[in-house]
Protein backbone atom coordinates (compact mmCIF):
# COMPACT_ATOMS: atom_id res chain seq x y z
CA UNK A 1 0.00 0.00 0.00
CA UNK A 2 1.29 3.46 -0.83
CA UNK A 3 2.15 5.59 2.20
CA UNK A 4 -0.47 8.18 1.33
CA UNK A 5 -3.24 5.63 1.10
CA UNK A 6 -2.19 4.15 4.41
CA UNK A 7 -2.33 7.56 6.08
CA UNK A 8 -5.73 8.22 4.54
CA UNK A 9 -6.99 4.88 5.79
CA UNK A 10 -5.77 5.51 9.32
CA UNK A 11 -7.25 9.01 9.38
CA UNK A 12 -10.52 7.63 8.05
CA UNK A 13 -10.65 4.96 10.72
CA UNK A 14 -9.86 7.46 13.44
CA UNK A 15 -12.58 9.80 12.24
CA UNK A 16 -15.16 7.03 12.00
CA UNK A 17 -16.42 7.02 15.59
CA UNK A 18 -16.48 10.80 15.59
CA UNK A 19 -18.51 10.95 12.40
CA UNK A 20 -20.78 8.21 13.72
CA UNK A 21 -21.32 10.16 16.90
CA UNK A 22 -22.31 13.20 14.91
CA UNK A 23 -24.79 11.35 12.79
CA UNK A 24 -26.71 9.73 15.65
CA UNK A 25 -29.24 11.48 17.85
CA UNK A 26 -27.00 11.70 20.86
CA UNK A 27 -25.01 9.61 23.22
CA UNK A 28 -23.55 9.73 26.67
CA UNK A 29 -20.81 7.73 28.30
CA UNK A 30 -21.50 6.37 31.78
CA UNK A 31 -19.29 4.71 34.37
CA UNK A 32 -21.42 2.13 36.18
CA UNK A 33 -20.60 0.36 39.44
CA UNK A 34 -20.31 -3.35 38.69
CA UNK A 35 -23.20 -4.36 41.00
CA UNK A 36 -25.59 -2.24 38.89
CA UNK A 37 -24.60 -3.91 35.60
CA UNK A 38 -27.83 -5.70 34.70
CA UNK A 39 -30.14 -2.96 35.89
CA UNK A 40 -28.09 -0.33 34.01
CA UNK A 41 -28.31 -2.31 30.77
CA UNK A 42 -32.06 -2.50 31.04
CA UNK A 43 -32.34 1.18 31.93
CA UNK A 44 -30.12 2.09 28.97
CA UNK A 45 -32.39 0.10 26.66
CA UNK A 46 -35.49 1.84 28.03
CA UNK A 47 -33.71 5.19 27.74
CA UNK A 48 -32.87 4.51 24.11
CA UNK A 49 -36.46 3.55 23.37
CA UNK A 50 -37.86 6.65 24.98
CA UNK A 51 -35.39 9.32 23.92
CA UNK A 52 -33.46 7.81 21.02
CA UNK A 53 -30.22 8.56 22.82
CA UNK A 54 -27.54 5.97 23.37
CA UNK A 55 -26.12 5.37 26.82
CA UNK A 56 -22.70 3.79 26.49
CA UNK A 57 -21.96 1.89 29.69
CA UNK A 58 -18.64 0.92 31.26
CA UNK A 59 -18.66 -1.42 34.25
CA UNK A 60 -16.12 -1.63 37.06
CA UNK A 61 -15.34 -0.92 40.69
CA UNK A 62 -16.29 2.53 41.93
CA UNK A 63 -12.74 3.14 43.19
CA UNK A 64 -11.28 2.37 39.80
CA UNK A 65 -13.68 4.77 38.09
CA UNK A 66 -12.96 7.49 40.62
CA UNK A 67 -9.24 7.20 39.87
CA UNK A 68 -9.85 7.22 36.13
CA UNK A 69 -12.17 10.22 36.29
CA UNK A 70 -9.61 12.24 38.27
CA UNK A 71 -7.31 11.51 35.33
CA UNK A 72 -9.77 12.91 32.82
CA UNK A 73 -11.52 9.73 31.73
CA UNK A 74 -14.19 10.56 29.13
CA UNK A 75 -17.19 9.70 31.33
CA UNK A 76 -20.12 12.08 31.53
CA UNK A 77 -22.02 10.38 34.35
CA UNK A 78 -20.93 8.18 37.19
CA UNK A 79 -23.29 5.70 38.82
CA UNK A 80 -21.27 4.90 41.89
CA UNK A 81 -21.83 2.20 44.46
CA UNK A 82 -21.31 4.67 47.28
CA UNK A 83 -21.91 8.29 48.24
CA UNK A 84 -18.33 9.33 49.06
CA UNK A 85 -16.85 9.13 45.59
CA UNK A 86 -19.51 11.22 43.83
CA UNK A 87 -19.17 13.69 46.69
CA UNK A 88 -15.40 13.79 46.26
CA UNK A 89 -15.82 14.29 42.51
CA UNK A 90 -17.98 17.33 43.22
CA UNK A 91 -15.36 18.64 45.65
CA UNK A 92 -12.63 18.01 43.06
CA UNK A 93 -14.60 20.22 40.69
CA UNK A 94 -15.28 17.32 38.33
CA UNK A 95 -18.93 16.74 39.23
CA UNK A 96 -21.92 19.05 38.98
CA UNK A 97 -22.85 19.87 42.59
CA UNK A 98 -26.65 19.80 42.58
CA UNK A 99 -26.86 16.81 40.23
CA UNK A 100 -25.95 14.28 42.92
CA UNK A 101 -28.72 11.95 44.14
CA UNK A 102 -29.20 8.44 45.51
CA UNK A 103 -30.51 6.30 42.67
CA UNK A 104 -30.55 3.00 44.56
CA UNK A 105 -29.92 1.46 47.96
CA UNK A 106 -28.07 -1.83 47.63
CA UNK A 107 -28.77 -5.03 49.53
CA UNK A 108 -26.07 -7.40 50.67
CA UNK A 109 -26.59 -11.17 50.43
CA UNK A 110 -24.55 -14.11 51.61
CA UNK A 111 -24.84 -16.62 48.81
CA UNK A 112 -23.68 -20.15 48.01
CA UNK A 113 -24.28 -22.49 45.09
CA UNK A 114 -24.73 -25.28 47.63
CA UNK A 115 -28.45 -25.34 48.54
CA UNK A 116 -27.70 -26.48 52.09
CA UNK A 117 -24.78 -24.30 53.06
CA UNK A 118 -26.15 -20.88 53.87
CA UNK A 119 -28.71 -20.88 56.67
CA UNK A 120 -28.13 -17.51 58.30
CA UNK A 121 -25.59 -15.89 60.54
CA UNK A 122 -24.96 -19.29 62.15
CA UNK A 123 -23.35 -20.33 58.85
CA UNK A 124 -20.75 -17.63 59.38
CA UNK A 125 -20.37 -18.54 63.05
CA UNK A 126 -19.94 -22.24 62.24
CA UNK A 127 -17.28 -21.29 59.67
CA UNK A 128 -17.29 -24.77 58.15
CA UNK A 129 -16.05 -23.63 54.77
CA UNK A 130 -12.63 -22.99 53.24
CA UNK A 131 -13.12 -19.81 51.25
CA UNK A 132 -15.40 -16.84 51.68
CA UNK A 133 -15.53 -14.48 48.73
CA UNK A 134 -15.85 -10.73 49.21
CA UNK A 135 -14.86 -7.79 47.06
CA UNK A 136 -12.10 -5.34 47.87
CA UNK A 137 -13.44 -3.52 50.96
CA UNK A 138 -11.51 -0.34 50.23
CA UNK A 139 -12.40 -0.02 46.56
CA UNK A 140 -15.93 -1.42 46.57
CA UNK A 141 -18.75 -0.53 49.00
CA UNK A 142 -20.21 -4.04 49.00
CA UNK A 143 -16.86 -5.27 50.28
CA UNK A 144 -16.97 -2.62 53.02
CA UNK A 145 -20.53 -3.67 53.91
CA UNK A 146 -19.45 -7.32 54.09
CA UNK A 147 -16.60 -6.43 56.43
CA UNK A 148 -18.93 -4.30 58.54
CA UNK A 149 -21.40 -7.18 58.80
CA UNK A 150 -18.73 -9.57 60.01
CA UNK A 151 -17.48 -6.96 62.47
CA UNK A 152 -21.02 -6.45 63.81
CA UNK A 153 -21.21 -10.20 64.35
CA UNK A 154 -17.71 -10.14 65.93
CA UNK A 155 -16.58 -12.71 63.39
CA UNK A 156 -14.23 -10.60 61.31
CA UNK A 157 -10.97 -11.81 62.85
CA UNK A 158 -12.00 -15.47 62.76
CA UNK A 159 -13.15 -15.31 59.16
CA UNK A 160 -10.42 -13.08 57.74
CA UNK A 161 -8.03 -15.97 56.92
CA UNK A 162 -10.76 -17.46 54.73
CA UNK A 163 -11.26 -14.36 52.57
CA UNK A 164 -10.69 -14.36 48.88
CA UNK A 165 -11.00 -10.94 47.40
CA UNK A 166 -12.39 -10.00 44.01
CA UNK A 167 -11.34 -6.70 42.48
CA UNK A 168 -15.02 -5.82 42.20
CA UNK A 169 -18.40 -7.33 43.06
CA UNK A 170 -18.64 -9.11 39.71
CA UNK A 171 -15.47 -11.02 40.49
CA UNK A 172 -16.65 -11.79 44.03
CA UNK A 173 -19.78 -13.30 42.44
CA UNK A 174 -17.70 -15.17 39.84
CA UNK A 175 -15.62 -16.88 42.54
CA UNK A 176 -18.80 -18.27 44.11
CA UNK A 177 -20.51 -19.01 40.79
CA UNK A 178 -17.56 -21.12 39.60
CA UNK A 179 -17.57 -22.92 42.96
CA UNK A 180 -14.03 -21.88 43.76
CA UNK A 181 -15.28 -20.24 46.94
CA UNK A 182 -18.09 -22.06 48.74
CA UNK A 183 -19.88 -18.85 49.59
CA UNK A 184 -19.54 -15.13 49.36
CA UNK A 185 -21.05 -11.73 49.98
CA UNK A 186 -22.65 -10.49 46.78
CA UNK A 187 -25.21 -7.92 45.76
CA UNK A 188 -28.84 -9.02 45.74
CA UNK A 189 -29.07 -7.48 42.26
CA UNK A 190 -26.66 -10.12 40.96
CA UNK A 191 -29.04 -12.89 41.97
CA UNK A 192 -32.08 -11.45 40.18
CA UNK A 193 -33.96 -14.22 38.44
CA UNK A 194 -31.71 -16.86 39.98
CA UNK A 195 -33.14 -18.93 42.80
CA UNK A 196 -30.30 -21.46 42.87
CA UNK A 197 -28.23 -22.36 45.91
CA UNK A 198 -28.84 -20.95 49.34
CA UNK A 199 -28.78 -17.38 50.53
CA UNK A 200 -29.13 -15.16 53.55
CA UNK A 201 -30.36 -11.61 53.19
CA UNK A 202 -28.05 -9.79 55.56
CA UNK A 203 -30.28 -7.80 57.99
CA UNK A 204 -29.97 -4.06 57.54
CA UNK A 205 -28.99 -3.51 61.19
CA UNK A 206 -25.65 -5.26 60.58
CA UNK A 207 -24.36 -2.77 58.01
CA UNK A 208 -24.91 0.82 57.02
CA UNK A 209 -27.24 1.13 54.00
CA UNK A 210 -25.32 0.97 50.74
CA UNK A 211 -26.51 4.24 49.28
CA UNK A 212 -25.51 4.45 45.65
CA UNK A 213 -25.20 7.94 44.25
CA UNK A 214 -25.25 9.17 40.69
CA UNK A 215 -23.46 12.33 39.66
CA UNK A 216 -23.39 14.29 36.44
CA UNK A 217 -19.77 15.04 35.57
CA UNK A 218 -18.60 18.34 34.14
CA UNK A 219 -17.80 16.60 30.86
CA UNK A 220 -21.48 15.76 30.49
CA UNK A 221 -22.96 19.03 31.75
CA UNK A 222 -23.20 20.45 28.24
CA UNK A 223 -24.53 17.27 26.68
CA UNK A 224 -28.34 17.09 26.47
CA UNK A 225 -28.20 13.28 26.31
CA UNK A 226 -26.33 13.10 29.63
CA UNK A 227 -28.72 15.54 31.31
CA UNK A 228 -31.65 13.56 29.91
CA UNK A 229 -30.25 10.33 31.31
CA UNK A 230 -29.95 11.84 34.78
CA UNK A 231 -33.61 12.80 34.82
CA UNK A 232 -34.64 9.50 33.21
CA UNK A 233 -32.87 7.70 36.05
CA UNK A 234 -35.19 9.42 38.54
CA UNK A 235 -38.31 8.71 36.51
CA UNK A 236 -40.85 5.91 36.99
CA UNK A 237 -39.55 3.62 34.20
CA UNK A 238 -36.06 3.57 35.67
CA UNK A 239 -37.10 3.25 39.30
CA UNK A 240 -39.34 0.31 38.42
CA UNK A 241 -36.34 -1.44 36.87
CA UNK A 242 -34.15 -0.55 39.86
CA UNK A 243 -36.66 -2.07 42.29
CA UNK A 244 -37.06 -5.12 40.10
CA UNK A 245 -33.35 -5.81 40.53
CA UNK A 246 -33.66 -5.95 44.29
CA UNK A 247 -32.60 -2.45 45.21
CA UNK A 248 -34.49 -0.20 47.58
CA UNK A 249 -35.17 3.39 46.61
CA UNK A 250 -34.00 6.33 48.61
CA UNK A 251 -36.66 7.12 51.19
CA UNK A 252 -35.24 10.48 52.12
CA UNK A 253 -35.65 12.37 48.89
Amino acid sequence: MKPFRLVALVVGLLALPWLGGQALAGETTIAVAANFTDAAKEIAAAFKQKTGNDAILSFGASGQFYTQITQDAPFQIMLSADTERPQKLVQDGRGVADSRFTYAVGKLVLWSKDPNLVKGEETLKGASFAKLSICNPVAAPYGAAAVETMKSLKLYDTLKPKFVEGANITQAYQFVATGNAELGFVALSQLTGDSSGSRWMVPQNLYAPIRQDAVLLKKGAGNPAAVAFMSFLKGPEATAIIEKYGYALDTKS
Partner: protein
Amino acid sequence: MGVLTPEIWTAIELTIELALAATVILLLIGTPIAWWLARSAAWWKEGVATIVAMPLVLPPTVLGFYLLVVLGPDGPGGAVARLWGARTLAFTFTGLVIGSVIYSMPFVVQPIRNAFEAAGERPLEVAATLRASPTRAFWTVALPLAQPGLFTGAVLGFAHTVGEFGVVLMIGGNIPGKTEVLSVAIYDFVETSQWREASILAGGMVVFAFAVILCMTLLQKRVARAGE
Protein backbone atom coordinates in the same frame (compact mmCIF):
# COMPACT_ATOMS: atom_id res chain seq x y z
CA MET B 1 12.95 1.12 54.71
CA GLY B 2 10.11 3.08 56.26
CA VAL B 3 8.14 3.55 53.06
CA LEU B 4 7.80 -0.15 52.42
CA THR B 5 5.13 -1.49 54.75
CA PRO B 6 5.21 -5.15 55.84
CA GLU B 7 2.33 -5.69 53.44
CA ILE B 8 4.45 -4.53 50.52
CA TRP B 9 7.40 -6.66 51.63
CA THR B 10 5.10 -9.68 51.73
CA ALA B 11 4.03 -8.95 48.17
CA ILE B 12 7.65 -8.57 47.03
CA GLU B 13 8.71 -11.83 48.69
CA LEU B 14 5.74 -13.67 47.28
CA THR B 15 6.41 -12.35 43.79
CA ILE B 16 10.02 -13.51 43.91
CA GLU B 17 9.02 -16.93 45.26
CA LEU B 18 6.41 -17.33 42.55
CA ALA B 19 8.81 -16.28 39.81
CA LEU B 20 11.55 -18.61 41.10
CA ALA B 21 9.19 -21.57 41.37
CA ALA B 22 7.78 -20.91 37.91
CA THR B 23 11.26 -20.51 36.40
CA VAL B 24 12.57 -23.79 37.83
CA ILE B 25 9.52 -25.69 36.59
CA LEU B 26 9.67 -23.93 33.24
CA LEU B 27 13.31 -24.96 32.75
CA LEU B 28 12.49 -28.55 33.72
CA ILE B 29 9.50 -28.78 31.36
CA GLY B 30 10.60 -26.28 28.75
CA THR B 31 14.05 -27.71 28.00
CA PRO B 32 12.82 -31.16 26.86
CA ILE B 33 10.05 -29.50 24.84
CA ALA B 34 12.57 -27.15 23.23
CA TRP B 35 14.92 -30.07 22.53
CA TRP B 36 12.17 -32.06 20.89
CA LEU B 37 11.01 -29.04 18.86
CA ALA B 38 14.57 -28.41 17.69
CA ARG B 39 15.33 -32.03 16.75
CA SER B 40 12.12 -33.78 15.85
CA ALA B 41 11.09 -34.40 12.28
CA ALA B 42 7.46 -35.01 13.19
CA TRP B 43 5.12 -33.22 10.81
CA TRP B 44 2.96 -32.02 13.68
CA LYS B 45 5.73 -30.47 15.72
CA GLU B 46 4.94 -26.93 14.58
CA GLY B 47 1.45 -27.55 15.89
CA VAL B 48 2.92 -28.21 19.32
CA ALA B 49 5.17 -25.16 18.97
CA THR B 50 2.09 -23.10 18.16
CA ILE B 51 0.26 -24.29 21.25
CA VAL B 52 3.27 -23.41 23.40
CA ALA B 53 3.45 -19.95 21.81
CA MET B 54 -0.26 -19.17 22.10
CA PRO B 55 -0.11 -17.30 25.44
CA LEU B 56 1.87 -14.63 23.56
CA VAL B 57 -1.28 -13.73 21.68
CA LEU B 58 -4.15 -14.80 23.93
CA PRO B 59 -5.46 -12.21 26.35
CA PRO B 60 -4.73 -13.16 29.96
CA THR B 61 -8.48 -13.13 30.55
CA VAL B 62 -8.84 -16.21 28.33
CA LEU B 63 -6.30 -18.13 30.38
CA GLY B 64 -7.70 -16.71 33.61
CA PHE B 65 -11.21 -17.79 32.73
CA TYR B 66 -10.20 -21.32 31.71
CA LEU B 67 -7.99 -21.69 34.75
CA LEU B 68 -10.76 -20.55 37.08
CA VAL B 69 -12.95 -23.32 35.73
CA VAL B 70 -10.23 -25.97 35.36
CA LEU B 71 -8.69 -25.36 38.78
CA GLY B 72 -12.12 -25.18 40.43
CA PRO B 73 -14.01 -27.87 42.34
CA ASP B 74 -15.75 -29.15 39.18
CA GLY B 75 -12.52 -29.37 37.17
CA PRO B 76 -9.36 -31.50 37.32
CA GLY B 77 -7.72 -28.95 39.62
CA GLY B 78 -10.41 -29.61 42.22
CA ALA B 79 -9.76 -33.36 41.96
CA VAL B 80 -6.06 -32.76 42.62
CA ALA B 81 -6.85 -30.40 45.50
CA ARG B 82 -9.03 -33.05 47.14
CA LEU B 83 -5.91 -35.20 47.58
CA TRP B 84 -4.99 -32.94 50.48
CA GLY B 85 -8.55 -32.09 51.45
CA ALA B 86 -8.88 -28.74 49.69
CA ARG B 87 -11.64 -27.91 47.23
CA THR B 88 -9.91 -25.86 44.60
CA LEU B 89 -6.50 -24.87 43.32
CA ALA B 90 -7.65 -21.32 42.66
CA PHE B 91 -6.56 -18.84 45.34
CA THR B 92 -3.48 -20.95 46.10
CA PHE B 93 0.19 -20.50 45.44
CA THR B 94 0.12 -23.79 43.50
CA GLY B 95 -2.64 -22.40 41.31
CA LEU B 96 -0.60 -19.31 40.56
CA VAL B 97 2.45 -21.42 39.69
CA ILE B 98 0.37 -23.46 37.24
CA GLY B 99 -0.99 -20.29 35.65
CA SER B 100 2.47 -18.70 35.48
CA VAL B 101 4.07 -21.78 33.92
CA ILE B 102 1.51 -21.82 31.12
CA TYR B 103 1.63 -18.07 30.67
CA SER B 104 5.43 -17.74 30.59
CA MET B 105 6.14 -20.96 28.65
CA PRO B 106 6.79 -19.33 25.25
CA PHE B 107 9.36 -16.98 26.76
CA VAL B 108 11.40 -19.95 27.96
CA VAL B 109 10.91 -22.50 25.19
CA GLN B 110 11.62 -20.14 22.29
CA PRO B 111 15.19 -19.03 23.24
CA ILE B 112 16.18 -22.57 24.26
CA ARG B 113 14.85 -24.03 21.04
CA ASN B 114 16.73 -21.38 19.07
CA ALA B 115 19.93 -22.22 20.95
CA PHE B 116 19.58 -25.95 20.23
CA GLU B 117 18.91 -25.22 16.57
CA ALA B 118 21.81 -22.80 16.30
CA ALA B 119 24.23 -25.40 17.67
CA GLY B 120 23.15 -27.69 14.84
CA GLU B 121 23.70 -31.41 14.16
CA ARG B 122 27.45 -31.28 13.77
CA PRO B 123 28.64 -31.28 17.42
CA LEU B 124 26.27 -34.15 18.21
CA GLU B 125 27.52 -36.17 15.23
CA VAL B 126 31.08 -35.61 16.39
CA ALA B 127 30.10 -36.72 19.88
CA ALA B 128 28.52 -39.86 18.39
CA THR B 129 31.69 -40.74 16.47
CA LEU B 130 33.51 -40.45 19.80
CA ARG B 131 31.07 -43.09 21.10
CA ALA B 132 29.08 -40.78 23.33
CA SER B 133 25.59 -42.14 23.90
CA PRO B 134 22.77 -39.79 22.84
CA THR B 135 21.97 -39.12 26.51
CA ARG B 136 25.58 -38.34 27.29
CA ALA B 137 25.85 -36.14 24.20
CA PHE B 138 22.80 -34.23 25.35
CA TRP B 139 24.21 -33.53 28.80
CA THR B 140 27.85 -32.91 27.84
CA VAL B 141 27.51 -31.31 24.41
CA ALA B 142 24.06 -29.99 23.53
CA LEU B 143 23.17 -28.52 26.91
CA PRO B 144 26.46 -26.63 27.48
CA LEU B 145 26.28 -25.27 23.91
CA ALA B 146 22.75 -24.05 24.57
CA GLN B 147 23.74 -22.33 27.79
CA PRO B 148 23.10 -18.75 26.58
CA GLY B 149 19.65 -19.82 25.42
CA LEU B 150 18.92 -21.46 28.76
CA PHE B 151 20.04 -18.33 30.54
CA THR B 152 17.92 -16.08 28.33
CA GLY B 153 14.94 -18.38 28.81
CA ALA B 154 15.35 -18.41 32.57
CA VAL B 155 15.65 -14.62 32.84
CA LEU B 156 12.70 -13.99 30.52
CA GLY B 157 10.57 -16.60 32.29
CA PHE B 158 11.38 -15.05 35.66
CA ALA B 159 10.79 -11.48 34.47
CA HIS B 160 7.60 -12.32 32.65
CA THR B 161 6.19 -14.05 35.72
CA VAL B 162 7.00 -10.99 37.81
CA GLY B 163 5.17 -8.90 35.23
CA GLU B 164 2.11 -11.14 35.08
CA PHE B 165 -1.16 -9.51 36.09
CA GLY B 166 -4.38 -10.56 34.41
CA VAL B 167 -4.20 -14.27 35.15
CA VAL B 168 -3.25 -13.69 38.79
CA LEU B 169 -6.04 -11.16 39.23
CA MET B 170 -8.58 -13.62 37.89
CA ILE B 171 -7.55 -16.73 39.82
CA GLY B 172 -5.73 -15.25 42.81
CA GLY B 173 -8.34 -13.78 45.11
CA ASN B 174 -5.80 -11.24 46.36
CA ILE B 175 -4.75 -13.04 49.56
CA PRO B 176 -1.79 -11.36 51.29
CA GLY B 177 1.19 -13.71 51.48
CA LYS B 178 -0.43 -16.27 49.20
CA THR B 179 -1.66 -14.72 46.01
CA GLU B 180 -1.25 -10.98 46.37
CA VAL B 181 1.72 -10.39 44.08
CA LEU B 182 3.27 -7.04 43.22
CA SER B 183 1.34 -6.31 40.05
CA VAL B 184 -1.97 -6.93 41.83
CA ALA B 185 -0.85 -4.87 44.84
CA ILE B 186 -0.11 -1.95 42.51
CA TYR B 187 -3.56 -2.31 40.93
CA ASP B 188 -5.11 -2.27 44.39
CA PHE B 189 -3.19 0.80 45.46
CA VAL B 190 -4.29 2.66 42.35
CA GLU B 191 -7.91 1.58 42.77
CA THR B 192 -7.96 2.74 46.37
CA SER B 193 -6.23 6.06 45.62
CA GLN B 194 -3.05 5.18 47.57
CA TRP B 195 -0.87 6.73 44.93
CA ARG B 196 2.24 7.11 47.01
CA GLU B 197 2.54 3.36 47.56
CA ALA B 198 1.54 2.72 43.96
CA SER B 199 4.28 4.97 42.63
CA ILE B 200 6.96 3.44 44.84
CA LEU B 201 6.14 -0.05 43.59
CA ALA B 202 5.56 1.01 40.01
CA GLY B 203 8.89 2.85 39.99
CA GLY B 204 10.60 -0.25 41.33
CA MET B 205 9.08 -2.34 38.55
CA VAL B 206 10.30 0.12 35.92
CA VAL B 207 13.85 -0.11 37.27
CA PHE B 208 13.59 -3.90 37.40
CA ALA B 209 12.35 -4.16 33.82
CA PHE B 210 15.07 -1.80 32.59
CA ALA B 211 17.79 -3.79 34.37
CA VAL B 212 16.51 -7.13 33.03
CA ILE B 213 16.31 -6.03 29.42
CA LEU B 214 19.64 -4.22 29.54
CA CYS B 215 21.37 -7.27 31.05
CA MET B 216 19.87 -9.53 28.40
CA THR B 217 21.02 -7.29 25.58
CA LEU B 218 24.54 -6.94 26.94
CA LEU B 219 24.78 -10.67 27.48
CA GLN B 220 23.58 -11.45 23.98
CA LYS B 221 26.19 -9.07 22.57
CA ARG B 222 28.92 -10.77 24.54
CA VAL B 223 27.83 -14.19 23.41
CA ALA B 224 27.69 -13.02 19.80
CA ARG B 225 31.20 -11.61 20.09
CA ALA B 226 32.50 -14.79 21.70
CA GLY B 227 31.03 -16.75 18.80
CA GLU B 228 32.93 -14.79 16.17
